[in-house]
């Protein structure tokens, strides 16, 4: 592997080369002829621009996402584009993901509302190709879906929105559907093993089948307040929430997971807020050193 990795990296990064001009630049600096000059990277220019904006308006944060988080954002966008799903209506689904080579597959399984009504969505993201989104109710009556009626045997974005806004109508409609077709009723189970029978200890919990142990952030890591600021900005950006929504949001949980053999330390936050009459549960997980967003999620309708 020695040569292979070196060759590939050198070839891919061949445009990054240290030339004599750079050497002379450093030598001028050690002689005191010029001050340390930092190149303004695109990122730094953005940073300076944002700082300027912060002077005259509300400070903005540029969100950095992991490749997985970027893929999840694309998947949600694909569902918004094709099916009109909004952040709150997407919140009734349990999102799972799988990566194979350069292809991501996201599944959104009905959990906060009955699966036989809302169905499951799937989005396949292949590098360089348009996202492919599908729904188990793709053959459903479009006119009935467009009507928004809860009598429809398939619940699309309009039905879910109505169901989230009107608890009584939701309850009544679900009972009617169950009565009419009891054989369709299924119970969604998350595809991850349950925690061991003896449960978790204090400061531990399971997340996507993985045991998380609470730790204490090191001095070189983001503080809880710093991490929360980034988490809120990311959630606002991802789920089209306003600053006012975030200001009202109640933090229900903060968790610092110490570094493991396979993963770096992270901060995880859970927030709760009611927006336009819909209860939203929000979750953000970010790298405790760099602030890179690793996971964002929204839950509604009792999901989560």
């Amino acid at each position, binding site marked *: *592997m020695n040569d*292979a990795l070196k060759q*590939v990296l050198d070839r891919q990064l061949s445009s990054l080369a240290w030339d004599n001009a750079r*050497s002379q630049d450093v030598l001028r600096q050690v002689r005191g002829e010029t001050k340390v000059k930092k190149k303004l990277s*695109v*990122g730094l220019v953005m940073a300076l621009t944002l700082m300027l904006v912060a002077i005259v308006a509300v400070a903005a944060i540029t969100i950095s996402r992991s490749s997985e988080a970027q893929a999840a954002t694309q998947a949600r966008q694909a569902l918004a584009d094709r099916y009109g799903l909004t952040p709150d209506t997407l919140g009734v689904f349990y999102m799972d993901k799988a990566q194979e080579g350069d292809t991501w597959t996201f599944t959104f399984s009905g959990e906060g509302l009955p699966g036989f009504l809302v169905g499951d969505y799937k989005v396949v993201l292949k590098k360089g190709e348009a996202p492919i989104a599908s729904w188990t109710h793709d053959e459903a009556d479009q006119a009935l879906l467009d009507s928004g009626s809860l009598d429809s045997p398939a619940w699309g974005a309009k039905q879910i929105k109505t169901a989230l806004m009107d608890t009584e109508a939701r309850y009544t409609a679900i009972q009617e559907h169950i009565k009419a077709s009891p054989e369709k009723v299924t119970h969604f189970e998350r595809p991850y093993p349950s925690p061991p029978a003896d449960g978790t200890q204090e400061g531990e919990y399971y997340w996507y089948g993985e045991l998380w142990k609470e730790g204490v952030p090191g001095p070189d890591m983001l503080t809880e307040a710093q991490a929360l600021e980034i988490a809120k900005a990311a959630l606002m950006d991802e789920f089209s929430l306003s600053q006012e929504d975030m200001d009202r949001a109640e933090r229900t949980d903060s968790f610092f997971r110490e570094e493991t053999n*396979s993963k770096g330390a992270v901060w995880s936050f859970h927030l709760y807020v009611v927006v336009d009459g819909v209860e939203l549960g929000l979750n953000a997980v970010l790298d405790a*050193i*760099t602030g890179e967003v690793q996971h964002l999620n929204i839950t509604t309708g009792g999901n989560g």
Partner: protein
Amino acid sequence: MDFVAVPDRVQEMELERLMTQYGSSLLRMCYVYLKDTGLAEDAAQETFLKAYKHLHTLKDAQSEQAWLMRIAINTCKDFLRTSWLRRVDRRVDIDTLPEAAQDPEMPDATVINAVMGLPAKYKDAVMLRYYQGMKIAEVAQTLNISLDTAKARLRRANEKLRQQLERWYYDE
């Protein structure tokens, strides 16, 4: 007689030699850590400035490459710790780099992305061993860890890379 500060030509020549010998590989290594060309250039520059200031410690170092790479890794980590303060969007910008020669076996950025995605401690070991071509003992020395720990990190890093790079991966 007035004291006149004369730049140390010997030290400058030594610095120039280090930059010529290690400049490009150090710059590229910084890029793998920082995922931003501008930051990588800043970090490489800062590495050499720090190296110049501490050249006197080089004599005691067993390997000048290990000594220099330790400075580079620490500098990159310092940059990473403060990058969020700079509000830097560190999304991988490899696609924005000028067009590089294409590898028919691996025409995209799969390899770099796989290495970039490794947890920091594995990335350190992989970059030093496989990119800088260091011996495992030098990797351990650079990272200030035991030989066994260095071996274990390389083994785990290899396992992770093997999973992601099945198509082209082969062992040493």
